[in-house]
């Protein structure tokens, strides 16, 4: 019955190694917690500071001006008015951007997934990836030079939505291509073997099958652009009234936040509108996750 023959060289100092291992583990946990803590802090801060302002008026009134806010503060009331002009503006511009970006994005995505290895497709794919990294402020400049100066001859919702739609495009292209690539080719071949022409296979079989994925991509793109401020500052400008004319300056929720931030009288509104914006964006993200878990093929 042999005693265990421990090795001579390496076995000493193992407790130090165990301690090192533990310390590193604790470091990882600690830093991970630090990494996510801003989410918690930001949400708590927004709720504490902003919830007071959120009521019906907040959604149906336009933004107040400094004087109205001042009077209210002096009387100890809550600031009157809301962000209706921002909400309608955001909706208007995001809708418009979607109308432009979704068809082109999906069609290009289809083209890429159907022509995987073509040189042209590769070029487009690379361009789309580069587009995805272009800072939004640069898109603002471009939309200003294209739309504000030449087309609408003035700051406009349309100019704002053009910059947003360029932001959305690569996201939609990518998600469309990825979704379609994931659909097994036998589904496609099954339809073809029924004598269905190719373009009908794409639109009637592949797109419906990948609907969940497409929707996820679109919603994600929308949630990305909803919070954009910089490009809108130099294209849509902002407006103190509700405006549905796409050739006219228009407000948006993030633009209002910027205005409120700059005007300490309206500070209370900055929190509530940020709370609203973030709540909305996060809700979209949650919906996306739901769809992704349930609907996406495979």
């Amino acid at each position, binding site marked *: 019955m042999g005693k265990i023959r421990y090795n001579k060289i390496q076995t000493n100092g193992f407790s130090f190694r165990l301690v090192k291992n533990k310390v590193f583990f604790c470091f990882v946990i600690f830093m991970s917690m630090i990494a996510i803590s801003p989410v918690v802090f930001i949400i708590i801060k927004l709720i504490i500071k902003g919830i007071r302002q959120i009521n019906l008026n907040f959604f*149906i*009134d*336009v933004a107040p*001006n*400094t*004087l109205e806010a*001042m009077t209210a503060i002096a009387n100890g009331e809550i600031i009157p008015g809301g962000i*209706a002009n921002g909400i309608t503006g955001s909706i208007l511009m995001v809708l418009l951007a979607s109308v432009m970006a979704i068809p082109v994005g999906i069609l290009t995505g289809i083209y890429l997934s159907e022509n995987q290895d073509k040189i042209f497709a590769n070029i487009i794919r690379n361009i789309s990836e580069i587009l995805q990294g272009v800072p939004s402020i640069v898109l603002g400049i471009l939309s200003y030079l294209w739309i*504000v*100066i030449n087309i*609408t*001859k*003035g*700051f406009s919702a349309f100019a704002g939505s053009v910059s947003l739609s360029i932001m959305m495009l690569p996201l939609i292209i990518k998600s469309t291509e990825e979704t379609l690539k994931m659909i097994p080719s036998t589904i496609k071949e099954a339809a073809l073997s029924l004598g269905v022409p190719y373009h009908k296979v794409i639109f009637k079989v592949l797109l419906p099958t990948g609907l969940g994925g497409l929707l996820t991509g679109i919603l994600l793109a929308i949630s990305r652009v909803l919070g954009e401020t910089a490009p809108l500052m130099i294209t849509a*400008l*902002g*407006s*103190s*009234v*509700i*405006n549905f*004319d796409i050739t*006219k*300056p228009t407000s948006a929720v993030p633009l209002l936040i910027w*205005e409120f*931030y*700059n*005007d*300490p*009288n309206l500070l209370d509104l900055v929190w509530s509108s940020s709370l609203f914006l973030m709540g909305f964006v996060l809700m979209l993200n949650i919906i996306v996750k739901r769809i992704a878990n349930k609907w996406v093929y495979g």
Partner: protein
Amino acid sequence: NDFSQSGKEENKKVTITAAGATFPMPFYNMVFKNYTKSTGILLTYGGIGSGGGIRSLKDKIVDFGATDAFLSDEKIKSMPAEIVHIPTCLGAVVIAYNLPDVKGIKLTNDLLEGIFMGKITKWNDEKIKANNPDINFPDKDITVVHRSDGSGTTYIFSDFMSKVSDVWKTEVGKGKSLKWPCGIGAKGNPGVAGTIKQTPGTIGYIGSEYAFAQKIPVALLQNIAGNYIEPNVESISAAAKTDIPDDTRVMLTNSADPEAYPISGFTWIILYKDQDYDGRSKNQAMETVKFLDWLISKDAQDVTKKVHYSPLPETTVEKAKQILRTVNYGGEKLL
């Protein structure tokens, strides 16, 4: 509320777009809203700075621009067509600061130069203490806050500084945007005000209303007569007690009037004399001019005091009316 009212008006089609100075924005916001309420005409105003107002008019993307710095003859020539200046009110650029529990700092022109040139860097600097013997200054860095965008407010301020300081005149000069020797930048009058309000130790120049509305303390400045003057409706009006040229293009800084606040000035709206450009409708032109006519009327001018601006002197209103009458639509009279 606005929603239902604007829907009923038959004039709802006309939207007037304007952009420019943030200095008079509190006044504009208020009167614009009133005008929309009573006429249904939508007015949007973007506070993008005086420089932005001029460029927007040049690019013909607004119905009128707003600026606190009048255009030089040269600048006027560089515009695509003849433009006119309409003064809308008088305002003051105040020196606002954030020092907890310190009120009523008195500043001389030398001190202003020292602070804004970055030579005086501490609040408890001997020179400041000597001028304000009653005040107990903390040992704190002075952080100058200036505009990061182009601005008529900056123009008025630097116009004043250039008049009173030779060093400033040669090293910095006057203009809507400058190469600042020190300090941090913030966007628009609101941005500067917000930064000052939130950051102890700061000092900066802003349109008076931004300081009063937010109860930010302002410094008393020494005018030519040697009096320390607080910016208010009277002291601002006093600055305009001088000869105003017919085209109203004049700077009122460093006024000789003993009661005048030294950094005061007009703020203007600029528009094309001939409103028939770029396919604008006559209706659009008419409504624009009508609105401006209302803006210099007593109705609108009365509002100025509520937001700590001063109304235009009677004589200036007359001159403004004269100018407005020259605005036409392809030769046709609009007023």
